[in-house]
């Protein structure tokens, strides 16, 4: 069993969720509540990372993360290190690749928050921030859980993008998904099956916990 790959996978999935959720909440809320021209365009843009084959997306990311490319340069000047073939690099790639998973469910959830609840919160003296925290977030909670589950699961399974940008370096960028792929490539079906089982157990547990939590809400709508 490849424990270091499991650890990389888990770290990657957890960090991706942590970074992506605030973004998802912010963007999803904007897309849900604001009315502006070109909103459809923005929504389509958000869904783009889904459309490109992972390896192709990875290829473009690899190019733009390079030392000579703008993103890579920026990162270099900020941290002094490179982006490609590092954990930070695959994390960034994973953030991009998971954008649609994080934003879409949250956006739909925000769209379903009746506007007069926001108004009631304002009239109760809650600032827009407090309204977000105390009223809207609890109401969009199922959507956030959905987003988390999708992002988490997809990051665990993601492979093309991560391989391309990360280069499968042991203990740093080699995830469990890559390890499984390698096993399959090497015709070690038993090893692959074992690792796949591990991956399934981890995701299943996480998803089960997440959906269990979601199912626990006692209140109902309407």
């Amino acid at each position, binding site marked *: 069993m490849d424990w270091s790959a499991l650890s990389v996978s888990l770290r990657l999935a957890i960090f991706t969720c942590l970074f992506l959720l605030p973004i998802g909440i912010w963007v999803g809320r904007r897309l849900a509540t604001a009315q502006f021209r070109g909103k459809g365009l923005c929504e389509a843009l958000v869904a783009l990372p889904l459309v490109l084959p992972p390896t192709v997306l990875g290829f473009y990311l690899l190019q733009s993360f390079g030392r000579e490319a703008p993103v890579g340069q920026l990162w270099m000047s900020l941290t002094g290190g490179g982006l490609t073939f590092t954990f930070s690099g695959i994390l960034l790639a994973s953030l991009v690749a998971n954008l649609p998973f994080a934003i879409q469910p949250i956006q739909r959830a925000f769209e379903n928050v*009746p506007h*007069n*609840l926001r*108004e*009631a*919160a*304002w*009239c*109760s*003296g*809650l*600032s827009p921030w*407090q309204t977000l925290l*105390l*009223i809207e977030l*609890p*109401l969009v*909670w199922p959507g956030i859980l959905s987003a988390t589950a999708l992002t988490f699961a997809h990051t665990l399974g993601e492979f093309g993008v991560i391989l391309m940008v990360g280069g499968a370096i042991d203990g740093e960028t080699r995830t469990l998904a890559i390890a499984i792929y390698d096993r399959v490539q090497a015709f070690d079906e038993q090893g692959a099956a074992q690792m796949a089982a591990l991956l399934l157990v981890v995701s299943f547990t996480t998803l089960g916990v997440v959906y269990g939590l979601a199912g626990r*809400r*006692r*209140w*109902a*709508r*309407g």
Partner: protein
Amino acid sequence: MVKLTVEAQQAGPIPLNAEFSCLPGELLALVGPSGSGKTTLLRAIAGLYRPQHGRIECAGDTWLDTQRQQSLSPQRRRVGMVFQDYALFPHLTALANVQLPLRHLPTPLRRPKAEQWLETVRLKGLENRYPSELSGGQRQRVALARALARDPQVLLLDEPFSAVDQVTRRRLQRELARLRQQISIPIVLVTHDLEEAAALADQICVLHNGNSLQQAPPETLFRTPASPNVARLLDRNNVFDGQVVEVDGTRRLQWGRYALDVASGLEGLNVGERVAWYLPPSDIVLHRRDRPSQGERENPVAASVDEIIVLGGMTSVALRVPHGDMLRFDIATHAVRRNQLTPGVAVNVSLLAGGIHLMPGHGVDTAPDEKRNTP
């Protein structure tokens, strides 16, 4: 001035042309037909709706001044608002809903205070229910408690008692009256219950199609509506069409074949002018069969009973006068029995001269046509 003054004008999409004010400690009732803009005006006061032109001042602060592009956020206006559809937070229990506006208090005080408010609206024991587990009236009372808990500078109540039974309603009204003595803030109450408005309000403002037609104390309003339109909106019947005449050198009001004495109002009018007039039902006095009634000689009118509707202790009577108009008033049910009133019976009534209220400049036909409501 520390009072609340509201002015709002716009052509569309919701037409508004309203102006009213409310002193601290005073209760202003907004009444008007469904769709006349009552909720919209409350929302404008709360800062949830921005009319194209308008000015709202409260407690010396300017909350809205469209000319100066000034508008305070809802949070900074400190209003307690009961929404018409309650707008309870579905994910919070009744108690937590009420606790939310109490965030200015230190944490340990919030819970007891919220419990106290829930007790005020008679919901003790239901603190831990979610809104979906409450009946309509219970939800409404949670909304009321939440608005009161805000410690507001102005209280905006959008039909706050519409879903509660009469007994509870009476208690809540009493609670509201008590509250008014304790905290001296303007209270704006939207209601479709004119009795409630009359019983609770210091001032009533009548709205129609977004226009504020008249603002006055209830007694004044019910006795001297500004126009037949107002009278009709206030569900007053007894609005008639008359003509100014001169009989024996004194001005009289010609109504069918009667030339009525009028206590005041005829002086400024020209002879021959048509004028709408109104008589409060309390100024219609039924002559008793067995013995003379007081004021019997004042404007006696012969009529026949058209309709008798017994409503518990009171009975509503409609009399038809010879030229076709209908006089409506209420009398005690035992008086109906005593006078043996039944449909078709001929009776005499006096129309007290002091009650006759002239509304010059309005024809009776400018009745509120609700179709004008439509876009």
